[in-house]
């Protein structure tokens, strides 16, 4: 593997994009001219990334992960959100948004279903954690960590309940039903006495463990342990979701996203996989809700308005729907920007609303575009295909066949 990787980095660049291949090879030869360099194509970073060897990728990832863990301790001067917002708590908030974005990305990015009420799943997760750990609740009490899987199970159930009637139909119904559901959960929390409306539940549980002086490690004011916990969960969830993405399930999702009718005709049980995507997305939303409830320690009906759902959607769309790294980045950014630049925090909804429209009009693939092809085959197949592509003549100005057929496919899908 590494033998073939090493000497031919330029050839592993996406085979379909001959123009970029030329750019890459000219760079490798040290002849990069400014004009070529100036225009970075959408797949630029992804191509550079896939040009690295496996070992280099791992080394890079380890550094990134270690830096991510150390982030609240280093508290880097320009990046920090202080004064104004505690940086460790800001880190937790970013991680929470990133986790939500990873979950929503499964629904919106992979399966192409528009979920506008994601906050509802988040709310359900929060209430599960609160009602089963807070002393304000008369019900059964269980240790906090057990509420995390339970919250996932309950939200998954809600996801299936909501998904089964709507997912048989075209995607737009799901959008409005989820939008309604997002609002309904908030109303139910207000008007059902058992959910305690604005009074809410205080002293929601937290993971066990105390410092030397007896104060709990996972306190509400200390963001660092919560951030580490969430980051660990993000890594696990991302790995799991990444495996799903490369499996039969992921291929089915992407087929559904690209053209549901064609997928159905090709034998993909679209309904089943849509419900799966929706339920998995919901479960991740519930998980992040339970984490949020634990960190804040207080849950009431004021935290879950539908506008927050749109922020979540903006996170996925901004990062690049269908790309899990993009989703993490987008989630972190959507949380980070208002915390860092407190002057514009008041306008954040407006800013992200406008951003949604502008991104859709001008760059619908987001910051990090999804790799749509070769996803399923892994690295070996990628090399095989790209090596074959490297032998083909590349110095034509005509757009290469891959892009062409893809564009044709898209046209066909909408016709």
């Amino acid at each position, binding site marked *: 593997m590494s033998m073939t990787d090493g000497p031919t980095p330029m050839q592993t660049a996406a085979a379909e994009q001959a123009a970029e291949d030329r750019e890459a090879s000219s760079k490798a030869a040290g002849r990069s001219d400014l004009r070529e360099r100036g225009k970075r194509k959408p797949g630029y970073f992804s191509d550079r990334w896939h040009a690295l060897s496996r070992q280099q990728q791992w080394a890079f990832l380890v550094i990134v992960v270690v830096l991510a863990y150390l982030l609240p301790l280093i508290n880097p001067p320009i990046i920090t959100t202080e004064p104004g917002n505690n940086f460790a708590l800001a880190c937790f908030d970013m991680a929470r948004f990133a986790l939500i974005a990873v979950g929503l990305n499964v629904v*919106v990015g992979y399966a*192409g279903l*528009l979920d*506008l009420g994601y906050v509802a799943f988040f709310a359900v997760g929060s209430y599960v954690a609160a009602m089963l750990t807070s002393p304000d609740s*008369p*019900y*059964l009490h269980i240790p906090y960590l057990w509420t995390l899987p339970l919250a996932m199970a309950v939200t998954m159930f809600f996801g299936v309940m*909501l998904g*089964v*009637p*709507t997912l*048989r*139909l075209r*995607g*737009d*119904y799901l*959008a*409005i*039903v989820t*939008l*309604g*559901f997002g*609002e*309904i959960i908030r*109303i*139910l929390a*207000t*008007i*059902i*006495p*058992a959910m305690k409306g604005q009074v809410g539940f205080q002293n929601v549980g937290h993971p066990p463990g105390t410092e030397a002086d007896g104060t709990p490690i996972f306190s509400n004011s200390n963001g660092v342990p919560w951030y580490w916990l969430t980051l660990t969960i993000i890594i696990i969830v991302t790995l799991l979701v990444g495996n799903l993405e490369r499996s039969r399930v992921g291929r089915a999702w992407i087929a559904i*996203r690209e053209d549901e009718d064609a997928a159905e005709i090709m034998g993909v049980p679209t309904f089943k996989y849509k419900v799966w995507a929706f339920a998995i997305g919901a479960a991740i939303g519930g998980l992040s809700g339970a984490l949020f409830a634990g960190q804040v320690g207080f849950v009431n009906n004021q935290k879950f308005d*539908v*506008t927050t759902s*749109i922020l979540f*959607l*903006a996170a996925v*769309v901004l990062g690049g*729907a269908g790309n899990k790294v993009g989703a993490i980045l987008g989630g972190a950014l959507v949380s980070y920007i208002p915390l860092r630049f407190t002057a514009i925090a*008041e*306008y954040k*909804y*407006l800013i*992200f*609303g*406008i*951003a*949604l*429209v502008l991104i*859709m*009009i001008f760059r*619908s693939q987001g910051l990090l575009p999804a790799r749509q092809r070769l996803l399923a085959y892994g690295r070996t197949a990628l090399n095989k295909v790209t090596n074959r592509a490297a032998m083909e003549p590349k110095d034509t100005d005509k757009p290469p066949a891959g892009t062409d057929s893809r564009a044709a496919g*898209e*046209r066909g*899908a*909408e016709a």
Partner: protein
Amino acid sequence: MLPSLVPLLPTENDWITFDVPSLAENFWSATFDGLTFGAIYALVALGYTLVYGVLNLINFAHSEVFIVGCYAVFFTLSGLGFGPSVPRLDIWAIILNLLLALVLAMVASAVTAFLLERIAYKPLRKRNAPRLVFLITAIGASFTIQYLIYLWRGPSPELALTMFRPTPIFDVFGTIIDSQQLVIIIAAVIMMVGIDRFISKSRTGRGIRAVAQDPDTATLMGVNKERIIITTFVIGGLLAGAAALFYVMKIPSGVQYSGGFVLGIKAFAAAVLGGIGNVRGALLGGLLLGLIGNYGQILLGNSQWTDVVAFVVLVLVLLLRPEGILGTSLGRSKA
């Protein structure tokens, strides 16, 4: 293990209670009030239905088109000297003022709908974007308008205006129907019938139906698709503006930046209930949803249950009969 599960079960009616006697007692007043709300839902639902019929797009920003109309009504009437107390004007002056507010609200909503179509949707249609992109743009546009209003007017609702004192008109089954309810229901039904005639008889209406049926063939047959799409948005806007006047009349304290949002979901539920894409379906669905919502609210004992009931109706319709009561048939051939 089993005893420890007992506390999980709801105790002492903590979750949901049904108040049947209260519903039986207030049945007729709930009916007439429900029809009034239903007429308003129906007018807004038409905007969803028409755009959905022609473009197959849920125009999420339609709720904002509606709320812009509400603000137009509010500013016109407060500019004309209306306030929280009953105005001291004779009946004709009030009617003239309300007509002026109606026209301005319709214009404001129609202009919003027009701009929305030009700025947000047209660039997407030009490059033939996937449906998901349309939907995300729609929700983004809705969000943007909502927060522009928020930044302009703040979070609290506007001052409640009283247009006229509702006077009892006649008595049905011991329940008094007042002038306000009568005005709203009659005006809304007249508009509905007008729109229905317009869609089925006029040249433009035929164009709308043709584009809904098959945009490409319609274009080949000489229908100007772009103009039809704009007309559809503008008609939806006009009706939303009219609904705005009735809404402010019925719920004076409802003029708020987020006021359109929930009403939009209910109106959409009404459109789906009647059969989305179907003009008469919007009327039927709106009236039915108004009734169901009102009964549910009284049965469950809190006005906020209306929204929950409407939502449950939407989900049930999608589960049992997704094509709605009258079926989806703006283009007549769409099954």
